[in-house]
């Protein structure tokens, strides 16, 4: 403070160097990805057309469009949501509104953490063992979607629980004081004020589910099936697997084609993701208490 102007100056130098270093590290993390995404856009962009999106692949998948894969991914995501959202929201309600702080709750939390960490290929094995073989759903949209649902369950639980816990505890107490049951409190006050947060999480889940490949490879997604699925017991093509197949398994695919598929897939995933982020930012700006 008194005699250490030198030291102060050096400190400031170190400070600004360190800051620059960390900024560089951050940019090095982000920039390559942006460059890669740009390349995807440049190489895949010319492929995109209405025809590409809405026609079936032809000539052994070396030409034509991606309609069955696009529709298949929508099927897989929707059925997966139908299974995972009710269970996930119920689990979050239980953990946030009912569960006491006891051993069971700790085990549930541990199970959720571990479920989130199970490798996707292990989920695939589980899907084969449980849904395809044991429950006899065969390789079908149902089996694949249930596998995806188990895999994304932790995402729904964690994001829903966060949304529920963003509702201040005082509101619950005020309701309980009036003689409201826990469920009445949830239905009248907690859910209406967290539903948008829950939706944000669900959109995020959609984005995860749409991009997954390994869990659906052996449970319901087909390499090549130029028809649209008619029911949940059908197999289907999917965007993610289609990208894998045409970039590794099929000979003589024109160079731009997989780029086009990758671009559509990443466009679906990132736009859902961006929607979720935008929704969240909007909610943060809109105060209700």
């Amino acid at each position, binding site marked *: 403070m008194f005699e250490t102007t030198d030291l102060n100056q050096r400190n400031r130098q170190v400070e600004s160097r360190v800051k620059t270093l960390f900024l560089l590290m951050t940019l090095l993390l982000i920039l390559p990805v942006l460059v890669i995404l740009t390349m995807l856009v440049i190489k895949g962009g010319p492929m995109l057309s209405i025809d590409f999106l809405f026609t079936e692949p032809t000539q052994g998948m070396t030409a034509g469009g991606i309609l069955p894969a696009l529709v298949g991914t929508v099927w897989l995501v929707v059925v997966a949501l139908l299974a995972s959202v009710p269970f996930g929201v119920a689990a979050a309600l239980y953990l946030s509104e009912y569960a006491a702080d006891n051993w069971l709750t700790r085990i549930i939390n541990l199970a959720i953490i571990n479920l989130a960490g199970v490798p996707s290929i292990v989920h695939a094995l589980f899907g084969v063992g449980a849904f395809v073989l044991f429950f006899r759903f065969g390789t079908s949209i149902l089996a694949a979607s249930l596998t995806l649902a188990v895999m994304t369950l932790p995402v729904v639980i964690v994001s829903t629980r966060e949304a529920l816990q963003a509702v201040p505890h005082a509101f619950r107490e005020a309701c309980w004081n*009036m003689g409201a*049951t826990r469920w009445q409190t949830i239905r009248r006050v907690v859910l209406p004020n967290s539903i948008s947060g829950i939706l944000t999480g669900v959109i995020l889940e959609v984005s995860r589910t749409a991009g997954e490949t390994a869990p659906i490879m052996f449970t319901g997604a087909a390499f090549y099936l130029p028809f649209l699925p008619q029911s949940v017991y059908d197999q289907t093509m999917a965007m993610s697997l289609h990208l894998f197949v045409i970039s590794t398994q099929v000979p003589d695919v024109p160079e731009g084609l997989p780029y086009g598929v990758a671009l559509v897939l990443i466009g679906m995933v990132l736009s859902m993701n961006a929607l979720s982020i935008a929704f969240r930012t909007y909610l943060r700006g809109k105060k209700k208490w």
Partner: protein
Amino acid sequence: MVTDEGRTAVDGSTRDGAEVKLSVRDLSISYGDKTVLSGVSFDVEEHEIFGIIGPANSGKTSFLRALNRMDDFIPEMQVEGEVLFNGMEVRRWRNVYALRRRIGVVFPLPVGLPLSIYDNVALSPQLSGIKDKTVLDETVERCLRRAALWDEVKDRLDSLGSLLSGGQQQRLTIARALSQEPELLLLDEFSIAVDPVTTMRIEDVLKELKQEMTIILVTNLVQQARRLADRTAFFLSGELVEVAATEDLFTGQVQDARSRDYVEGRFG
């Protein structure tokens, strides 16, 4: 101290002929190994305003929580002893929600629920199954009027209750408690977030409400207890020092010197 034979009845014990609404026997409350209230016993009569005064951390709020079994929601809160409401131990009410519906509570920090002002007040009757719009309208207006809030909000009943000012939210909280038509109304330092003029208006309302219900008023404003309460209990560091007719407490006719010191403001 009892000097006058005629006063014995209104001392710590209850008046002749009055119904006992709430009876507390040897009540102790603790959080983990920290005891906040120990061995408290007294009765509250029907249609009286029962004041509870005492410095901060003397166990007043915990006491109120025990009455309507809010301890069910606070895992570490332990309650021992008896609380008899209408002669029935509250822990034996199996439908705890029916118990809470008969006991209205107003806590110090106002909580306007993130519902419309109308729904804030209509919620409790709705939960107990009332759907008739005219009945609900009538209840909402009556309760808001009583809580001295009607004139300020009658033109914007659709706006969010949680966005009202602190003082308005506190009156909304009172209106909500009244909408339950409680038999027992618990008020915990309700005037903290309310301006003096409104406080006086609410105090007038409380005097009227006494005809319909029993009121327990926890306050750290000793003069408020003096203005409103028929009898007053003095809590200090988790103990009940004494229960006395409010006038006795404030005119020094009490048994314990600490009570007199407190009401005269000679207390740290």
